[in-house]
């Protein structure tokens, strides 16, 4: 396999989960709720999925793919339920949305590590804070994967990448082609007008945050199946924040955000490929890992000035306010 192929394959495996998480963020922020909680949501989702997978792997044969898909469903459910904390704090208790996001993230780390240790100790009888998963199987599309360069897109694909693309397309449709999507965008731009038009602003926002919880959980689970191949506190590596940067860079719309995610993904994978190519010691990997973060910062410098965020972003909806 050529280096270029590796860059494309690894880059996509990193970028697509980030993309689906960013879409979740777009849903939440377009409805008017700042969502820094993505980081915690993806971690909690991965925890739920990881737990389910570990529990199920004991009763299924090694080659069965059922635990894989069930764990994704469990992750989505977990992420959606966990996002209700953000909903409650932001909508019901009118907390500052940035504070709420940070709180949700801190709680996610504490809660998942505590529960993981507890469950490992109690159920599996081993002191550990990890749920060890197997790295997901990969497949190559016959024929298409033989094409030079572009073929790499179809080579060694994780099944979750396909799932993400399907869901992303669906979410794009919901956002831009359905009445619900329009209501959602209205709630983020002018909630009072939306309210006057008979839309229940808080209900729409609740659903939007829950969607972001579910989508982030897919991302977290994907990372647990690819990069770390386990659930452990390592899942909280700031990918959630990276995806927020991606959606700001993508100006809160879906397709440009995909571009941003791809840039991050390829920056990461080409950096790693470079280290392998040059035969540098593995400690140099740490230097390369800076790339996505540094790139985010640089891109934000160029693109933050003229962004048009949803107008009512971060504002608590108060019916009485004019």
């Amino acid at each position: 396999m050529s280096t270029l192929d590796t860059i494309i394959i690894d880059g996509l495996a990193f970028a697509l989960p980030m993309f689906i998480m960013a879409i979740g963020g777009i849903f939440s922020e377009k409805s008017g709720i700042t969502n820094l909680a993505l980081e915690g949501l993806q971690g909690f989702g991965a925890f739920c999925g990881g737990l389910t997978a570990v529990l199920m792997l004991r009763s299924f044969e090694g080659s069965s793919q059922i635990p894989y898909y069930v764990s994704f469903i469990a992750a989505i459910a977990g992420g959606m339920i966990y996002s209700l904390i953000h909903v409650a704090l932001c909508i019901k208790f009118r907390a500052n949305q940035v504070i709420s996001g940070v709180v949700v993230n801190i709680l996610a780390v504490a809660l998942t590590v505590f529960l993981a240790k507890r469950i490992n100790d109690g159920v599996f009888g081993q002191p550990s804070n990890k749920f060890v998963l197997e790295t997901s199987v990969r497949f190559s599309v016959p024929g298409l994967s033989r094409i030079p360069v572009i073929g790499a897109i179809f080579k060694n694909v994780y099944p979750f990448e396909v799932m993400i693309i399907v869901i992303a397309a669906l979410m794009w449709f919901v956002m831009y082609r359905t009445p619900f999507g329009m209501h959602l965008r209205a709630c983020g731009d002018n909630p009072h007008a939306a309210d006057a038009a008979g839309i229940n602003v808080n209900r729409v926002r609740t659903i939007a945050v829950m969607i972001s919880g579910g989508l982030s959980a897919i991302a977290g689970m994907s990372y647990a199946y690819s990069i770390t191949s386990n659930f452990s506190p390592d899942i909280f590596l700031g990918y959630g924040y990276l995806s927020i940067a991606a959606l700001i860079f993508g100006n809160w719309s879906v397709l440009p955000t995909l571009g941003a995610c791809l840039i991050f993904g390829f920056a990461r994978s080409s950096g790693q490929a470079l280290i392998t190519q040059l035969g540098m010691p593995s400690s140099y990997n740490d230097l390369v890992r800076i790339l996505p973060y540094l790139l985010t910062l640089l891109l934000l410098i160029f693109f933050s000035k003229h962004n048009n965020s949803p107008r009512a972003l971060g504002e608590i909806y108060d019916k009485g306010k004019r």
Partner: protein
Amino acid sequence: MKKLIVKLMGGERFQTMRVSLFCIITSLIVGAAILLAIGKNPLAAFGNLLQGSGLMPKSSYAGRQNMFTDFMSFLDALTPMIFASLAVSAALKAGLFNIGVSGIMLASGFTASVLVGQSELSAFIAKPLVILIGIAVGAIVGALIGWLKYKFNINEVVSSIMINYILMYIITFFINTFFVDPISRQSKTITDSARLTLSGTRAFDLKFDVSLAFPLAIICAIVIKFLFDRTTTGFEIKAVGLSRKAAKYAGMSVPKNIILSMTVSGALAGLAGVTYFCGYFASIQPGVVPSMGFNAIAVALLGNSDPIGCIFSSFLVTVISKGSIYMSSQQGVEMEIADLITSVILIFTACAEFLKMYVGRLSMEQGGSEEAGEA
């Protein structure tokens, strides 16, 4: 029940403090419920927290140790926490969230360990130098975040998190490549003359740690309190935090105040870094962002971003985190339960504004019904 709530938290006097206290007690009850659910005695567990922090005598001690030893070690852990929470609250005054405290701590701690920690300087030069380096490095990174905020309109939360990870990876690289201690896999231990904690001081038949920076932390809190409550600069920063447009209209410079508050915040975070990595610890573990920077957000919010409040809330959170080590060894509970309780406190604190509003509404309802009864 409602009357009780109003009685406890209604009225203007010390309301913020009473609401904070209510949040803490409710969180402790939640913590107790968790402990009960996993079959532990919550009272014993909370007692262990106090014992581990040297606030209550343990049943037995090792040689040359007693409650005083534990308490001094507790103060040593408390010092960076006070600085870190002051850092967060200084930024909060200007309406900014400095989530970069962790990264700044690493940067200042690392710079000080490398520049001074390995040198042969005498203690009288080395220790002040460590503090000055901490302040300088922190202030630079803080100012950078503030500059990015006003110049390029980058959300400070996102930029400070990016900077956290960038700093963490760079420092991890340098530690692993140049400064690693082959046995502990951490950075090389700094010399005693550079360390801000006198470890293993012997007196009164005891052996204990003395945190030299603790008085400095208290002084800093008072200075920051003075800065924000009694000076024009502090007033301007607060005005910018409350409403940027209003401040601009009144002729204040928004960029200047944003950068200034982030610089102060960064300098304090830098102090937290040197007292943590060159005081409480003497080496840096590569590959980890210190969680203290994030807990400091909780602490600052709990202290209502008031410098003196920060001292008290740092005290509480440090009791929980420091005592949890002893608790986990005594009760066989995971140490993370401390983080769990801290985050529950945070959740309630996030609702403090709502709570105040709710109490206000309740007391108005009750006041209204009483008046109706009299009429």
